[in-house]
């Protein structure tokens, strides 16, 4: 909404005093300045690149990268292209952001509720956590946790051994990796079927409750479906997978899955930091729900647990979601601090290594920024949609 200055003036006003013409003139000047400035920068960059003989364009994305990356979710090796390195970095960013968002939400809600707990000790502890974490720079926290993790874990030969299958050392957390064999496809299919079925059961049970007031154990049914069906599929197909256990070989463990310390400390710091901010948002959201709602709910005979779950949280969500969106975006953007501890995220791999190896600063930074912008805008759009869905439907 913009406030329009009333522009009607006496007909004898000279043209330079007429605010309508002034507005047009001013905008033209601004347009010329901005476009001119852009053209000036573009021209300079072009001249500079030309004169210094720096290559430009995006052809480099196809050429061989020649370096390795410690963590890659898609196949990648030194003979892969810069384009594939970009993909690896992007996926690493998305993974740490996704893990971070889920865990930070949980931590944030738990701590936000704990902050308002009637238990004095719990409320204090939560308050101390929130205040301390929010007031220390994230970069410092990331570096600190990385250092602490490195100091508190033993070398590979003295690994902490959990049942001969899981090992923890200063190279990471090693776990057995499943190796799938023929016939395994049925299990994920069964999982999807179970999820879809649960949604239908939920809808049906809700409709029935609305119509007749009869309740249906939705939680247990869905849990049973989601765990039981894949398990059944697994047994029917004869357990078609084996576990690849990590083994100590030479310098380190080979095989299995590994969570590298860079990932763990980055994710941990992001979760702890963002969780504190989310906790504050949750607290504000809950405080925004008037106390009368709680009292009314108690009067209806609901216990504190259901009151929180059925009455307070749904209303508080409307207040919580908009700031929650920006926390998610912040977390995603903050994951770029990975570059300080050698976690190969988008910025470290692409705006770092690739930029250095190719020297094409303009292209690399532009691509990196474009990726973050796209991620941010997509998240905003999704959360706006979710927000409208959650918004109070006034009748």
């Amino acid at each position: 909404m913009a406030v329009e200055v009333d522009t009607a003036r006496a007909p004898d006003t000279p043209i330079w005093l007429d605010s309508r013409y002034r507005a047009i003139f001013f905008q033209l000047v601004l347009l010329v300045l901005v476009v001119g400035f852009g053209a000036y920068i573009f021209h300079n960059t072009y001249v500079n690149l030309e004169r210094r003989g720096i290559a430009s364009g995006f052809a480099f994305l196809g050429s061989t990268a020649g370096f390795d990356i410690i963590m890659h979710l898609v196949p990648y090796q030194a003979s892969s292209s810069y384009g594939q390195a970009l993909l690896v970095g992007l996926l690493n960013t998305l993974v740490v952001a996704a893990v971070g968002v889920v865990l930070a939400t949980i931590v944030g809600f738990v701590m936000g509720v704990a902050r308002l707990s009637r238990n004095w000790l719990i409320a204090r502890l939560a308050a101390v956590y929130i205040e301390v974490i929010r007031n220390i720079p994230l970069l410092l926290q990331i570096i600190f946790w990385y250092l602490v993790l490195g100091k508190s874990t033993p070398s590979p030969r003295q690994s902490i051994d959990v049942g001969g299958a899981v090992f923890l050392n200063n190279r990471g957390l090693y776990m057995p990796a499943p190796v799938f064999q023929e016939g395994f496809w049925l299990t994920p299919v069964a999982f999807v079927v179970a999820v879809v079925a649960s949604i239908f059961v939920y809808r049906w049970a809700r409709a029935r409750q609305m119509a007749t007031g009869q309740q249906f154990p939705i939680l247990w049914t869905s849990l049973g479906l989601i765990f039981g069906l894949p398990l059944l599929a697994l047994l029917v197909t004869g357990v078609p997978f084996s576990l690849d256990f990590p083994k100590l070989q030479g310098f380190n463990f080979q095989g299995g899955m590994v969570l590298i310390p860079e990932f763990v400390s980055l994710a941990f710091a992001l979760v702890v930091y963002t969780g504190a901010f989310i906790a504050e948002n949750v607290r504000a959201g809950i405080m925004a729900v008037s106390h009368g709602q709680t009292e009314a709910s108690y009067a209806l005979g609901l216990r504190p647990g259901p009151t929180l779950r059925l009455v307070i949280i749904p209303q508080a969500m409307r207040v919580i979601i908009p700031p929650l969106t920006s926390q998610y975006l912040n977390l995603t953007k903050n994951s770029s601090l990975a570059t300080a501890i050698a976690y190969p995220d988008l910025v470290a791999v692409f705006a770092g290594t690739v930029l250095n190896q190719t020297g094409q600063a303009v292209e690399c930074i532009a691509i990196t920024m474009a990726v973050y912008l796209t991620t941010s805008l997509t998240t905003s759009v999704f959360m706006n949609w979710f927000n409208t869905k959650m918004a109070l439907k006034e009748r």
Partner: protein
Amino acid sequence: MKKLSLIAAGVALTAIAAGGAQAQQTLEQVKKRGQVICGVSQSLPGFANPDAQGNWAGFDVEMCRAVSAAIFGDTKRVKFVPTTAKERFTALQSGEVDFLARNTTWTMSRDTQLGFDFVGVNFYDGQGFMVPKKLGVKSALELKGATVCTQTGTTTELNLADFFRSNKMDYKVVAFEKNDEVLAAYDSGRCDVFTTDRSGLAADRTKLKSPNDHVILPEVISKEPLGPLVRHGDANWGDIIRWSFFAMVNAEELGVTSKNVDEMKKSANPEIKRMLGIEGDFGKMIGLDNNWAYNIIKLVGNYGESYERNVGEKTPIGLSRGVNALWTKGGLQYAPPIR
């Protein structure tokens, strides 16, 4: 508001005008400024390292001082700009520094694609590996499955991948942004191996908690000719850096040192006479004073002196001359004659 935009336009125009005037030769700029701006490593003992008072010392730093001596007859007219591996090329491309005297490997792509000219090789280096002694590793070929710490965006990172690929060994690489971070990670046991140029390994070993618990493996897995570089397109400026360096090497070959240079002025050797500006107009040829080489030798010293003072066997870095000996002594250092 209109006034503001007029001012802005004016500023933009002035900037354009200034830009035109700036496109002059580097030497003139340096003389006008009264200072040569030299890009160096951030902190690499023996090569470029500031002490607590901020005074720079090291082998690369003396290259900068030599250029300052050649131009101004004074070694103090240098501004040292510490650059990270990432910033160094942009700093040179953009004119932030006049030249880079920094552990930078001469490669074809850097020489052509990035728009630089390497002027010579003041240190022949090669990439090596350092491991803790307690691992009992004797050769780089035993490193199968090891975790390697390195600095991102360097040729080191690429050579490392090549080495393991060509020997069909798998490995894990942890690549950090800054050298100090690589070192801290290696020291804390995050990696089994630390890799960089062998000169860097020797320098960095002095920065570990207990340097004697670590050993540099014998393999040299790459050619790393390190040398100063300038922007492409100003041939005269490149000549000045190139011949300042060659003057130091020639001086060593001819036995001229900072101590005996004044006596050597009386030498009958025509090569020395030409170098020290007694005969011929060689300084003028590169736009300098005929005393240029004399000043370098007098104020900085010859190549061998600089080497021994900063990285030689008597220093904590402890590098023998090896391939960096003069060609007359079985090494690779060979400067074209001044004539």
